[in-house]
């Protein structure tokens, strides 16, 4: 906690500040000599309901920029984007940095740059993210200043989706060497790299109205990554998972595990959903060249990402649990 608030630092409103990415952005801004976080979520000191117009309008009054990290239910996400852009039309912040996702590309394959359109099937989450981008896009066309970032799978300490979940599945021997099922491109965005890009986007020149892919790994397959991660976790000998077993997981076991997950959060309730299995196969390479030049995106190598996860206390606790 800073002793006093330094009003020479530019206040940045973070919507969704209690989430995984939002909290890391808040922490980074806390250390920044230039910015000062105004961390907003329903639960934080500055309570903002991102889906409530009045609440957002009030929050916008004294801030310089906004970072929109709102996650959650798909419709709530879209609603929050709409509310933010509507509010911003009457109380415009200097810039909105909006977090989207690589999910907007759906089933695209090959090397994917920002101008690539969505390829069916696009998940419900991907559709919601596309809708949000549309809302932000209209705001830009109406003269607003916004930057859209599309991170790939965000990996790092504290990521439940791409880190804790994978740790549990690897240790249970339910993921490992997936053979042809794991030849897909493993596009991981290391959390520190994502946060760095978000902060850079606040003031980067010539980025207004643009969209950027944010990804750290290049030319990595899921098999390579899962095997390296397994080894680092000591989840060895690595199991070869037959395609048949994966199909049983996705088609038969996943629905049961998801129901159970509502009651218990444990290794055995982590589901390997059909969409997760499809991602492991999807031959997609997220090209983050534009962000590397315009946002000085740093790309942490996979071994360093893994090492950072292993150093983290939450991982140590997870590994200590049976």
């Amino acid at each position, binding site marked *: 906690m800073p002793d006093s608030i330094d009003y020479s630092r530019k206040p940045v409103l973070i919507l969704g500040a209690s989430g995984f990415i939002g909290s890391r952005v808040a922490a980074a801004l806390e250390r920044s000599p230039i910015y000062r976080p105004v961390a907003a979520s329903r639960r934080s000191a500055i309570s903002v309901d991102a889906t409530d117009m009045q609440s957002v309008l009030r929050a916008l009054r004294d801030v310089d920029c906004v970072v929109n990290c709102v996650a959650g239910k798909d419709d709530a996400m879209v609603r929050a984007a709409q509310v933010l852009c509507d509010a911003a039309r009457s109380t415009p912040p200097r810039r909105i940095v909006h977090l989207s996702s690589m999910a907007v590309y759906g089933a695209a*394959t*090959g090397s994917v740059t920002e101008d690539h359109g969505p390829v069916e099937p696009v998940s419900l989450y991907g559709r919601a993210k596309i809708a949000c981008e549309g809302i932000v896009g209209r705001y830009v066309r109406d003269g607003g200043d916004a930057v859209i970032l599309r991170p790939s799978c965000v990996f790092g300490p504290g990521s439940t989706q791409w880190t804790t979940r994978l740790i549990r599945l690897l240790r249970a021997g339910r993921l*490992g*060497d997936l*053979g*042809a099922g794991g*030849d897909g491109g493993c596009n991981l965005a290391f959390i520190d790299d994502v946060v760095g890009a978000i902060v850079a986007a606040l003031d980067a020149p010539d980025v207004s109205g643009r969209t950027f892919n944010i990804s750290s790994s290049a030319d990595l397959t899921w098999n390579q990554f899962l*095997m390296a991660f397994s*080894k680092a976790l000591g989840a*060895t*000998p*690595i*199991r*070869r*998972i*037959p*395609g048949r077993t994966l199909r049983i997981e996705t088609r038969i076991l996943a629905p049961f595990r998801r129901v159970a997950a509502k009651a218990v959060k444990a290794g055995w309730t982590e589901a390997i959903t059909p969409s997760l299995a499809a991602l492991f*196969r999807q*031959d997609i390479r997220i090209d983050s060249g534009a962000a590397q030049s315009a946002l000085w995106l740093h790309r942490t190598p996979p071994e360093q990402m893994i090492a950072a996860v292993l150093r983290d206390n939450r991982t140590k606790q997870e590994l200590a649990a049976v």
Partner: protein
Amino acid sequence: MIQSADDIVRGSVVHADICIVGGGPAGIVLALELSRTGRSILLLESGGEAPTEQARALNIGEVAEGSLHSPPDTYRQRVLGGGTSIWGGRCVPFDPIDFEARPWIDHSGWPIGYDEVERHYAAANAWCEAGEYEYDARLAAPNGMRALLRGFSPRHFDTNGIERFSCPTDFGSRYRNRLRSAPNLRVLLSATATRLRAARDGSRIDALDVCNGRDAAFSVVAGQFVLAMGGMETPRLLLTSDDVHAGGIGNANDLVGRFYMCHVAGTIGSLRVNGAADTVWHGYDLAADGTYCRRRIAPRPATQAAMGLSNAVFRLHHPRIADPAHGTGPLSAIFLAQRFISYEYAKRLVSDAPPSAKTWLRHGMNAAIDSPSTARFLLHWVKARILADRKFPSIIVRPRTNLFSLDFHTEQAPNPDSRIGLGSSLDRFGNRQLRVDWRYCRQDVDTVAQSFDLLGQELADQAIGQLTLAAGERDIETVVRRDGAYGGHHIGTARMGATARSGVVDRNGKVFGVNNLHIAGSAVFPTSSQANPTLTIVAMAVRLAEHLSERVTRVPSIRESVN
């Protein structure tokens, strides 16, 4: 994308930057590696996605001495994936000594050094799904692998070298999706190359004649051609294409098809180990990456040099299955089930002579009396082999007594008289079929005999056990003849040389005198090593891809035009 050539119109011309002939591991790895360079790649495979009788018939040929070499339509597969659709998956790198010109072995020595291949072994291991490039037993498994024979520290043999096992990965099915989705890559199945068309001055290949499954001929025009058709078909196509180059392409010095090597291999002797059962470990250990690893006994390079031996390796093996005297249920069960084992595997596993009714009966008794271990063995086989994706590599049965035999797998010295040529019968396309005239020489027999004796001596000196030969095995040559040429390894028939006088291809795999023709696969190996060839075939394919991606100039992408 993957298509059938049957849809290609007679007389069409298919264009590509690089045309690769043969969709075995060499061709598939080359195609996928090269597809990333942005050039248009065409991969032609004579077979389809599954074996057919029509494709198999194209492999038929003659054998000079049928007792020494299996028929050419066995141990080979005309199908996407080639030999890896039935291979065993044993992966072993070559040794530095294999690349040296050894004064005691005529025609030995490669024009490239070990390190040129070694730097691609990590990639080759990944392609073969044989885990990491770590072949030292002390490092391959967490806390090191178990000792083969506890307390045995031979002076002349290394027991820390290992073999690792692929799944075994069938390159055709494993990489099918990638072949389908790779940019700039077109795979044509059911496309058999029938003749290379050289330019009038012979310096280039202008076109390749191809026939599809409906016998319609079309041609391929490409900037570069690579032959990756295996060690038998590659010399056959070169020899067949004799209209500009008399005697065949690359054959100005009569080297194509000569120096044909397999391995000399078999199972001999019996080793009675002195210690308790737990002093011996002849099975597998698991590496952290999940691959099965196993130790081998290899004569050291200095010993090979001092005694004038070729390279060799021994493995501890269960007693010969065919002889019911082993009294071991699981082994007898395998004997009884031989009808269900494919020719390629039954040949070495089961028996040399048709068994008598009495033999059958004794095996039946073994399986019945030892039924608990037979049942345990079968259960493990179903779980770890049949149902597993990474399969338990081979039959490992603990003999009831501490009695083992030795598997040997030795290098065959290069011999110009051992050769693949053209026979008199014609295939469906009117091309002459293969004729195999495989020969072994004194050096091959001596290598087995002398290294066996030396090993026996060291085992006795260190009081580990007694290694003896059965009455029928004393003359090692009879053992060599009994097991004959090791099937599936076809080596040396378009050897690499420093000059056109000593080789068909240069250090990069390019045919001497022809500017746009390269060869991939074990045909280019000047010597055969103790190692099974595929890992090195793949490493060399990665090396060739690197070379070609620097070499090829851009020409228009794949298109088709009807004359």
